[in-house]
């Protein structure tokens, strides 16, 4: 099962990169986008040509062709079991992008592959089949059907597949159990709070047991406390089910909290794709840098980013030897490093496989928290 590899890589940047490389050669990705475009307007074709050849940006396109670019040249691959967040402000094209994955919106150009299968030219019947079996979707505004009770809402996808009532109710109850809504089967959506409605929305997507979850700002409409709670539950659920997830959000905190990798989207373009740590420590441009400026780095930046080579370490006068230093590992967060330094007031030796790979001093740690390098 490729999911296990994915689980292993999920935490770290470097692992992700190497795994992606090896996957490409021998296996399929659950979701892959190749140079996707979506351009709205009468002159979409000409605009597409211009954008590809002259590299116009969104506002130039509007000025010259009267076309609105939703998505420009989006390419990415999502690994099995990965939560891939696309973060962008409203109008950045992220909702358009996620709808191109299940072809609720047809791309102007480019290709979408689900499990290695190109889907753009699938006949509508096959496309419906693919949606109902492999792709579960959760919406910002829940989009539950008001005249169905919770159970029938959750069983909706299976009902469309003409699964027998008994079987689909069993699946619905199981899915409701996963989102902790057992016992609410016969209530109607209007009788539920926003947070509960969205759990129903999630259960509806889970009930069809899809390989891939498409989540379009599922928690954005909820108040902050409920949002945090649902995020936590979703992380747990995701660890349990290991569903490959494309998660759209306008909230960087949310993206960092949930995403194994994050893509930052601006004016239809994916400006940076990387792990939360990469995004924070090596922002591609000022736009991303501005975004991440306010983010607390304590839990997102790790020892390997702030450590210095062991050779450069000069013991203070009282002659501390390396062996006397407290030890940690490259994946220890700044938060954990602070705990160590606060307790012992000594530099930290970073070891990997019992070999010293670097030193974190008080100075390098403080600068690391600020996001500055020496």
């Amino acid at each position, binding site marked *: 099962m490729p999911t296990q590899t994915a689980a292993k890589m999920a935490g770290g940047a470097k692992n992700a990169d190497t795994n992606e490389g090896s996957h490409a050669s021998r296996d399929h990705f659950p979701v892959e986008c190749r140079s996707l475009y979506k351009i709205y307007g009468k002159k979409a074709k000409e605009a597409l040509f211009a954008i590809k050849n002259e590299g116009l940006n969104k506002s130039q396109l509007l000025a010259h062709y009267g076309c609105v670019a939703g998505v420009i040249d989006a390419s990415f691959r999502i690994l099995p079991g990965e939560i891939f967040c696309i973060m962008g402000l409203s109008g950045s094209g992220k909702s358009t992008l996620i709808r191109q994955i299940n072809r609720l919106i047809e791309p102007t150009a480019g290709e979408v592959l689900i499990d290695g299968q190109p889907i753009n030219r699938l006949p509508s019947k096959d496309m419906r089949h693919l949606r109902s079996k492999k792709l579960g979707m959760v919406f910002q505004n829940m989009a539950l059907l008001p005249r*169905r009770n919770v159970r029938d809402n959750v069983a909706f996808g299976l009902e*469309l597949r003409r699964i027998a009532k008994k079987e689909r109710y069993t699946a619905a109850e199981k899915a409701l159990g996963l989102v902790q809504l057992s016992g609410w089967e016969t209530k109607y959506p209007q009788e539920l709070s926003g947070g509960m409605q969205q759990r129903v929305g999630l259960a509806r997507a889970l009930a069809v047991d899809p390989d891939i979850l498409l989540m379009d700002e599922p928690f954005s409409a909820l108040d902050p406390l409920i949002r945090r709670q649902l995020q936590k539950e979703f992380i747990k659920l995701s660890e349990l089910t290991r569903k490959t997830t494309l998660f759209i959000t306008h909230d960087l905190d949310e993206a960092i909290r949930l995403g194994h990798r994050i893509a930052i989207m601006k004016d239809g373009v994916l400006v940076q794709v990387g792990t939360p740590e990469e995004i924070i420590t090596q922002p591609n441009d000022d736009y991303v840098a501005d975004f991440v400026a306010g983010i607390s780095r304590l839990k997102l930046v790790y020892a390997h980013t702030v450590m210095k080579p062991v050779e450069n370490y000069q013991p203070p006068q009282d002659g501390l030897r390396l062996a006397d230093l407290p030890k940690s590992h490259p994946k220890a967060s700044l938060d954990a490093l602070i705990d160590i330094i606060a307790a012992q007031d000594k530099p930290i030796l970073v070891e990997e496989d019992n070999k010293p790979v670097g030193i974190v001093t008080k100075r390098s740690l403080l600068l690391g928290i600020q996001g500055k390098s020496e």
Partner: protein
Amino acid sequence: MTNPDTFARFDAIIERSIEKIGTSLEGFLDIFSAILEAILFGVEYALQLPHALLFIGLLGLISWRIVGLRRALLFMAGFFLCLAAGLWEETIATTALTLVSAAVALMIGIPLGILAAVNRTADKISLPLMDFMQTMPPYVYLLPGVAFLGFGESTAISTTTLFAIPPALKLTNLGIRQVDTAQLEAGRAFGASPLQLLLKVQIPGAMPSIMAGVNQTLMLALAMSVIAGIVGGGGLGAMVYKTIMFMDIAGAFNAGLAIVIIAIVIDRLSEGMVAKLQKTGPEA
């Protein structure tokens, strides 16, 4: 400058085409109206089968379930008033005419409304046609009816049915078009075919609007069934028409009051059923 010749020609065209429609559709219209008439007589007979007091009692019981005790008592009092005024047969006849023509109007209007909601051409045709039908004075419907079907119950029920179609059609169409796009998107995202989308998302979502159409259709059918008294429809319509001819103010008022009572009962009952449906939702 008006040219009388042009108008004469226009009039002739209208007359000739109506005649032509009449002759070419004669067989169909005869069968259609015969069926309607048969249903009407059946329903009227059934409604008159129980004793008036038993009928009022049953009405009260049903109303109690749907709109509560207070209104049920009010409805019973109203129908009892009709009975006391010696208008029982007429009241039942008008009720039957209203219910049957409304039911047939719904059976025609709702499917056509669904068609208009999903088919652009059907929508383009139905919109002006419905506007035309709704703004045309109701009396004008009666003449072609008389021309095709003659004077009598069959004309009354046919014109009443025709007159009551537009609200059912329009509100069904509107309701389906107004279903939240997010719900449609959810349907599509889970792999619904166009037909599944219609049956499982659009029509259920349009139910409040469709139900408003049912209510409107009932009300229009009642209004038209009274007017149809002129062309030989029985019941309170004929009564009103007769009393007007004889300047019988008291009689006209009695018949008018009975019509108001029927209107209130039908309106509140149908509204109550809709409200009940909406509160609990359909049975799973």
